[in-house]
């Protein structure tokens, strides 16, 4: 007599990350033997909202106790998101008084414009993009409102030439990440930051209107964040790619044009491949336009500096150096890396006495590791 085994499928965080896009499917049951580990993963990958929605839709099976814990923890994540949105309203006023109009990036912008319910997308800080010409005024406006810059500029003029962003922290401890471009390193240098402001759309929040990236540029930035943000991507960044690709109004032809202009073809291709594989959903037909783009060796090499072991061996700094045009500018970048201001060194590692030798030894270790 044939025996049928009825195995219960155990859901993974990647399964949860795929909820609500593509064909509806059963994600299985949360692991009973490692519920705390599973919940911790959902929190680290900012998937508690998707897990709760999947549970309410019957796609993810949770015990009553698991569902209660998940709802409680997700409530905390949403309280944090609301606190950040309140900070956005306050910082928005500070910038308006300074005559500045920043673009809201990532968390609040994606949650409110790409997801069917903003509670599906937790976030942990506030990211704002300003024009390079307005960088100093924006930093001063934040400082003037009691939001202190966490790390000083490594050397005078570094921010506008090579910098990506500066984190400011207010009295309530909320971090405002002020951006000048979308990513650190070579791709950040190839992007034309002031052109980003040509690709915006309105974002309504708390009775006010801000600027966010339009759906096409939102997609581009989601790809940049997922592909280059961390060597091993957080699942919410990959979900953002899938969410925006499948649910927002991306103009794929325009995306291909901008990606080529800013030398981001390989980045978008890498992110789309990750989203297809991790979320197990096919990307829209329009994505083929971007997947078919060719790229230069220098761009593929730059991508490797972010997504391979090179990243832990100074890969991003080396590839930035390669991407900086001109010997004088390269020398200025190198000088800032090797001889930053002493207060930069001090605040970068407050537990130890500032030391140039220790900093140089890091570079030596990188070189040794690259040769080894």
């Amino acid at each position, binding site marked *: 007599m044939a025996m049928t085994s009825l195995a219960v499928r155990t859901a993974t965080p990647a399964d949860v990350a795929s909820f609500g896009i593509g064909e509806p499917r059963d994600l299985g049951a949360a692991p009973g033997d490692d519920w705390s580990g599973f919940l911790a993963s959902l929190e680290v990958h900012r998937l508690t909202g998707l897990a709760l929605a999947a549970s309410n839709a019957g796609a993810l099976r949770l015990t009553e106790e698991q569902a209660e814990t998940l709802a409680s923890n997700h409530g905390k994540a949403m309280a944090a*998101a609301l606190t950040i949105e309140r900070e956005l309203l306050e910082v928005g006023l500070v910038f308006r008084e300074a005559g500045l109009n920043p673009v809201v990036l990532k968390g609040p912008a994606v949650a409110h414009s790409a997801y069917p319910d903003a509670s599906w997308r937790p976030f942990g800080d506030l990211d704002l993009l300003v024009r390079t010409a307005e960088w100093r005024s924006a930093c001063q406006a934040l400082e003037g409102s009691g939001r202190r810059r966490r790390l000083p500029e490594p050397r005078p003029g570094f921010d506008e030439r090579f910098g990506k962003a500066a984190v400011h922290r207010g009295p309530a401890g909320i971090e405002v990440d002020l951006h000048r471009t979308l990513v650190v390193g070579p791709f950040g240098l190839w992007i034309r930051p002031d052109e980003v402001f040509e690709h915006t759309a309105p974002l309504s929040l708390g009775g006010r209107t801000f600027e966010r990236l339009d759906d096409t540029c939102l997609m581009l930035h989601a790809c940049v964040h997922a592909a280059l943000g961390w060597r091993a991507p957080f699942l919410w960044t990959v979900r953002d790619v899938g969410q925006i690709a499948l649910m927002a109004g991306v103009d794929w032809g325009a995306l291909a044009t901008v990606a080529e202009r800013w030398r981001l073809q390989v980045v978008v291709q890498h992110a789309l491949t990750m989203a297809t594989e991790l979320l197990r959903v096919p990307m829209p037909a329009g994505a083929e336009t971007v997947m078919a783009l060719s790229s230069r060796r220098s761009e593929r090499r730059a991508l490797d500096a972010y997504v391979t072991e090179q990243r832990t061996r100074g890969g991003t700094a080396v590839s930035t150096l390669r991407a900086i045009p001109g010997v004088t500018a390269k020398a200025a970048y190198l000088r800032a890396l090797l001889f930053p201001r002493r207060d930069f060194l001090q605040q970068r590692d407050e537990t130890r006495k500032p030391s140039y030798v220790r900093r140089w030894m890091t570079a030596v270790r990188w070189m040794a590791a690259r040769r080894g």
Partner: protein
Amino acid sequence: MTDVLFYQSPSALIRRVDKDVLLASQRREGIDLLSGTARSVWELLETPRTLESLLDALAEIYAVEPGGISTDVESLLRDLEARGWVERVADGDD
């Protein structure tokens, strides 16, 4: 109160979490949590309603007589208004 329309304040920052609604605003510290009837009232005011219309809708949801809940609902509305989550406009105003 019947000539007045009540509606969700556009200045409220909102998150729906399971059976609850979390609300925050720039005007006040902290975050409020609405559940049960308070959440129902809040959700119904997504489109402006008179008190009478609100009572009728709640009576249908909870299978009760509108007259039996009017005192509690008026008190809840006052509280939501005081906290800045609900605003009012005279019916017919632009």
